[in-house]
């Protein structure tokens, strides 16, 4: 049994790779590939790589509105970092960021994987219907999603409050129709989590389904004959074979959820400092007042970026190794 799984795994992974060229090809123009990547390289270099370098530099400087008009920025060393580390708001925002990401990533991956498995075992027509449905959630813009969720959880005519008041009081309590979900961080983040998971589980589901299609049917057949349960089949067959895909999905979910900005901005706003996460905290320091502190905002952004890179470093390393071997 185990041998079969490994062999199949080798077959799946060893299938011809469309992404890499079959061998060194000599072309007439040696300059060709460089000219082809040049425009992309310039755009990405100027608009993505340069700002990354710059944000590191700005985090060590005192940059305000005056510096935008040509005044040289003053180097302040680590003062910006020292200032945020001494700010209670930073630690609150960090806690919110990490806790939210942990809950949202877990919920998104579980909901997405279960939906993907479900799609795999549904009939053709039902599967198409559900796929179409989750596409609707996937395609919804962040601003719209946040506005609709704040309507669903609103205090006047909000559907969720009405529904919770229908349930027995002993179970959920009463007074939900006048409950303000956005007054304190915990309920705000509850709504945010639902909103973000609702938007991001479809991608996970569709990717898991695409992965499932590469697993040979005979494996499940054989496992079923051996009397395995669905739970065993998932952990012994599906998960090991789809491990690379799960790696990518976990990385993506981490990237999305650590930096969530738009939904929280719409649901809670810049005035509600108690509910800040790192993105909102950095943004508010940089742009939130007339006295813009771009240096301080940069320092917060650097911290956020480092956390995300640290968490996703494992995945990047794997890809670098694969590229090197190709």
């Amino acid at each position, binding site marked *: 049994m185990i041998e079969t799984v490994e062999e199949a795994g080798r077959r799946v992974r060893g299938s011809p790779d469309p992404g890499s060229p079959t061998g060194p090809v000599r072309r007439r123009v040696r300059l060709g590939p460089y000219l082809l990547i040049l425009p992309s390289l310039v755009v990405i270099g100027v608009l993505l790589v340069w700002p990354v370098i710059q944000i590191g530099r700005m985090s060590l400087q005192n940059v305000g509105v005056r510096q935008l008009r040509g005044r040289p920025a003053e180097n302040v060393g680590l003062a910006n970092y020292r200032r945020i580390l001494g700010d209670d708001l930073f630690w609150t925002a960090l806690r919110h960021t990490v806790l939210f990401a942990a809950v949202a990533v877990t919920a998104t991956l579980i909901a997405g994987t279960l939906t993907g498995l479900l799609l795999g075992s549904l009939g053709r027509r039902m599967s198409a219907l559900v796929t179409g449905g989750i596409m609707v959630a996937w395609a919804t*813009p962040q601003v719209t999603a946040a506005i609709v969720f704040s309507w669903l959880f609103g205090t006047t005519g909000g559907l969720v409050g009405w529904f919770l008041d229908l349930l027995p009081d002993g179970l959920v309590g009463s007074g939900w129709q006048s409950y303000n979900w956005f007054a304190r961080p915990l309920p705000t983040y509850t709504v945010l989590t639902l909103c973000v998971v609702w938007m991001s589980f479809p991608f996970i589901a569709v990717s898991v389904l695409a992965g499932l299609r590469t697993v040979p049917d005979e494996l499940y057949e054989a496992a079923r004959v051996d009397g395995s349960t669905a739970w065993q089949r998932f952990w012994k067959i599906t998960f090991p074979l789809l491990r690379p895909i799960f790696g990518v999905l976990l990385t993506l979910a981490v990237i999305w959820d650590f930096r969530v900005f738009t939904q929280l901005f719409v649901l809670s706003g810049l005035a509600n400092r108690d509910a800040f996460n790192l993105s909102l905290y950095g943004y508010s320091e940089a742009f939130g007042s007339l006295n813009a502190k771009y240096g301080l905002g940069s320092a917060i952004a650097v911290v956020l970026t480092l956390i995300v890179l640290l968490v996703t470093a494992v995945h990047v390393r794997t890809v670098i190794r694969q590229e090197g071997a190709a």
Partner: protein
Amino acid sequence: MSPRRRPARRPGARLRRAVLNALGLGVFVVAVFPVCWMVSTAFKPNDEIFATTPHPLPAHPTLRHFDTVLTGKVAGVPFWHYFANSAIVATATVAVSGLLALLAATAVARFRFRFRTGFLVMLLVVQMVPAEALVIPLFTDLARLDLLNDLAGLIAVYVAFALPFGVWMLRGFVAAVPRELEEAAALDGAGPLRTFFRVVLPLVAPGLIATSIFSFITAWNEFLFAFTFLKDQDKATLPIMLQFFFGRSGNDWGPIMAASTLFTVPVIGFFLLVHRRLAGPGLTAGAVRA
């Protein structure tokens, strides 16, 4: 668990199927409900919106909220103006990023050159950097270049965000074009440009459509950069208009939902039309495999 169904023969298979279908329906309802509620609210008169017992569908559908949005102004600017700004930004992003991504994808799929691996890794790493972190340096750069209130500045940023994914996605499509076809065209005397337009382009068109949808949605939906860069209401895109409208009219849900519907339904329709291309295995395969 098996991706392809076999005819159900075992006892209990019908029950299993019924349970699975019920679960599927449940997922479907959860996924579409918020959007349906938005559309339904947009067509409800105010007394139904704020009714103590809400109904799923409007009893007396009205177009009043749509009329309010389409004929009125938000911050002194008519709805169609925001719509036009969004359309310009999204179209330009699709065109420019599609072209650049195709060129770069051809390079990495067809040639071996010194910085190929380095370039691919860079594409991957820049996708890991949170865009939220870049908003400050990009803002100060654009401010110095006097491009802040300019749609061109925003388009350039969106192109940069759409490119890494576009190259990853397209290189698989380019690599799948049989080299023999190109060689045959070359033997027949077609120059590289002619070969590209006559042989390669038609074959990578599906990939190009997929990346175009992705970059269109990126540009159409984006909020943070548009909100930060475009300070003139005159230049603002639809998400900015929506957020402003939402912030100003608080609980006036009818017009807010009508505006959200006008903004959202085109994207969803677009997405549903072409999702098969976007959701294929290529999406993660590109990132998993070298």
